[in-house]
């Protein structure tokens, strides 16, 4: 037995097999690259804000962002007015979202009007300072409204925005492919 050599044990380095994980990562990477977007606007996550779907294919552009959810009116992220619920006269037992009576003068909502006028004035000042036509104030406003809102609320908001020099409305909707 003296001349018999014991076979050398071959030790293989145990590396973690990450090939399958790489496959997974590559799939995720491709999916995320496909859904990568540089859109100018984002929607606020709110249970009381469900946008309607539309067949419109027009991309949104940067403008003053006015959100009317089922609970409140928000301008560029700042809550302005809390909405209320009033009984629906034609459907007893049901309620309609409405702007509180003490918050409006006829169709005008003064608090919202003041805020939007301030936005319009600052946009005009920026346009004047920059001097380029690219930043010119065009009275554009992005309206994100909850799909269940009655038209009466939207009409008052649109009327107020119109009085505050915002006449070009862009209703934000989910794009239907």
């Amino acid at each position: 037995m003296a001349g018999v050599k014991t076979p050398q044990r071959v030790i293989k380095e145990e590396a973690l097999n990450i090939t399958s994980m790489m496959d997974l990562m590559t799939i995720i990477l491709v999916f995320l690259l496909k859904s990568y977007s540089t859109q100018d606007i984002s929607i606020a996550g709110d249970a009381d804000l469900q946008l309607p779907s539309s067949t419109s294919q027009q991309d949104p552009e940067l403008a003053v962002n006015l959100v009317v959810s089922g609970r409140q009116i928000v301008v560029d992220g700042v809550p302005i007015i809390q909405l209320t619920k009033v009984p629906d006269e034609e459907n007893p037992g049901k309620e309609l979202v409405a702007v509180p009576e003490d918050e409006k003068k006829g169709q005008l909502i003064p608090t919202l009007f003041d805020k939007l006028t301030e936005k319009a004035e600052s946009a005009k000042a920026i346009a004047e300072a920059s001097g380029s036509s690219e930043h010119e104030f065009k009275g554009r406003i992005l309206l994100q409204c909850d799909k269940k809102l009655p038209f009466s609320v939207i009409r008052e908001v649109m009327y107020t925005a119109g009085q505050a020099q915002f006449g070009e409305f862009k209703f934000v909707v989910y794009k239907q492919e």
Partner: protein
Amino acid sequence: MAGFKTKRVEASDELDLVPIMNLVSILIPFLLMAAQFVHLAVIDSTLPAIGEPKEVEEKDEDDKPPLVLTIAVTDKGFFVSGADSVLNPDGGGDEDEDAGDDEGEERPPTVPCKGNAVCANPDAYGYEELTRILGLVKDEYPDDENVILLPESRVQYEIIVRLMDACREDRVNKNPDGTFRDLFPFVVIAGGAK
């Protein structure tokens, strides 16, 4: 040296994927932040213009009367007006005027609700039928692109958006090149009925 055993270490023949893993791990959180899972779009609309009345160009007497297409929305359906030459070619316009004088009689909706007399939800409105009617009006007035919407106070916003879609393009009867046929893309939302 007799008791010294050498262990041979064999190099792994697999590709070293760790650096790529590092790169991908950094990219994924970044792309997750910038990913957009819902696609947004906008619908243009304007308020009705208020100002000095424009001078109307003199037209030949043979010209058709200008189209002031108006769609009122109530819980009974859509009421199309301003296109009587297409909708009521047999002189329905005069009948409408008579109906207006007679306060007790109400004009039936141009596109009534599906099934019931009152539309219980946004799906109950006849958007397809309205698009078909607007297609007929467009055949008659190919250059007109404006439509005025007059929704009732209690009409839900979703119905208005779907109505705007129905007015904008005909997705059933396409152009010869396969694109959707444009109907009345410029939508003006007016104050509406109380």
